[in-house]
């Protein structure tokens, strides 16, 4: 499977990456190589193999339903470039 320039442009847009025209050709080649490698991997027979979710045998850790966090709006907003009245502030976004 090959990735063309249009696909690179689409992926970059979804990932919010700014990519120059000259880089697109190079990335299309690299991404195509990756896809080809994945295609090759898919030749391996895995029908009877369970997906491996962890390298160690352990169960998902769970928390009890207790409120033990929050109440730190100042910390949460500490790195915001702009705030007002306890909110993050960004340029207007309406779809």
């Amino acid at each position, binding site marked *: 499977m090959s990735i063309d320039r249009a696909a690179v442009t689409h992926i970059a847009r979804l990932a919010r990456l700014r990519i120059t025209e000259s880089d697109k050709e190079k990335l299309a080649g690299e991404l195509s190589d990756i896809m080809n490698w994945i295609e090759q991997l898919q030749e391996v027979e895995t029908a009877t193999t369970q997906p491996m979710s962890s390298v160690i045998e352990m169960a998902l850790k769970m928390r009890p339903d207790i*409120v033990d966090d*929050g109440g730190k*709006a100042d910390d*949460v907003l500490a790195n915001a470039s702009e705030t007002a009245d306890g909110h*993050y502030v960004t340029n*207007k*976004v309406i779809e």
Partner: protein
Amino acid sequence: MSEQLIDGQTGSWEIVVGLEIHAQAITQAKLFSGAATEFGAAANTQVSLVDAAMPGMLPVINMECVHQAIRSGLGLKAKINLHSVFDRKNYFYPDLPQGYQISQFKQPIIGEGCVSIETEEGGIKEIGVERLHLEQDAGKSVHDRHPRKTYIDLNRSGVGLMEIVSKPDIRSAEEAAAYVTKVRAILRYIGTCDGNMEEGSLRADVNVSVRRPGEDLGTRCEIKNVNSIRFVRMAVEIEARRQVDLIEAGGTVDQETRLFDPDRGETRTMRSKEEAHDYRYFPDPDLLPLEFDQALVDQLAAELPELPDEKYARFVANHGLSEYDARVLIDDRETADFFERTLTDGESKRDPKIAANWIVTELFGALNAADRSIQNSPISSAQLGGLLDLIADGTISGRIAKEVFTEMFNTGSDAGMIVKAKGLEQISDTGEIEAIIAKIIADSPDQADQYRSGNEKIAGWFVGQTMKASQGRANPGMVNKILKAKLK
């Protein structure tokens, strides 16, 4: 026909609807953090560093969210998956600090189930449930505080949602509304979602398409975030009509996300297909698969309260209620509980049909007029029971009871106290009634003669006079009997 066909210029069209309901799980803390879920707090005060997606923070699942999803799945008669997986759904929006929503894609916690709804003709129709999965809610964007800025509050970010996806089994706006009503009722019965659509704790995305009856599915449009049952009904009707008009004018329906504007009564393009999101789902590497034992499912099933359908069946079979009364009473759990408490609160057991009748007609009427819900009814179930006892033992007549009821509703007093204070006890003393009747007959010789010469209809006039003379307190059954004897 429960199916609602749309008449177009070129023939009939069938509506096909599928719904995604987002129901906020009732829990103290969020799905993956220990921050509170309570509605209406000051901005960003219920946010942990996990919810704000600070680097290095890791999600830890709240087990109560898992329990709530399992309970809901049981209520939807659905398959509970003992193994499920969390995925990342990737998109950019300022109120989604992670840049992805943790959701479940290929392997949801709950599989196929079904919900039965009542059709307009009174029949029952099963609507398939495709799945229920757990996911995080996003934060809230406020667009109206500043002309060029958007304000963001992350209090809602990370709150646990149960997304319930129906199969495209719905064929009319009414069915869509009935389905949402029923799912909401089930979740409220079980206590897994408060169903408050105004506060957004239950909202629906409505997928609508049209087709010629019997043909393959048409292209669908998704109408986002419809936040009342009335709007669900309106959105289906308006969108289906738009699609029919479009196709008949020679156009084609584009698969797109639309917005419902109730003020203008229209749906509008929100995002077209070209801008459609490609979410690039993949398993979240921060989370292991969600696994639990059948024993947990069995335990939660054993604790489940009686559900609306079962309660309905019991009310009809055991209490002998009419289908209408049963349906109205089971509509929400508080009403059903009020009814059952009315039967048993206090010393005696009461007739269920009479109790149902008083609740459905008198109490609902008064509550509606006063714009109150049954939870803050001025008349408690015990007090209503007390009124029913006074009717049952003949202390007051049914007519006087309505008067007493109004007084109870306005003052909150017990029926017995009102009856005593106002001297409303029914007169069941034979001598007293005979005296009243004797006087009326003596005062009205003409009418008495008419009766004796065969005009039995005039008896009604005598009953009226007797009731009037006794201020409505004479026992009607006895009045009839004594009148007949005296007029001979």
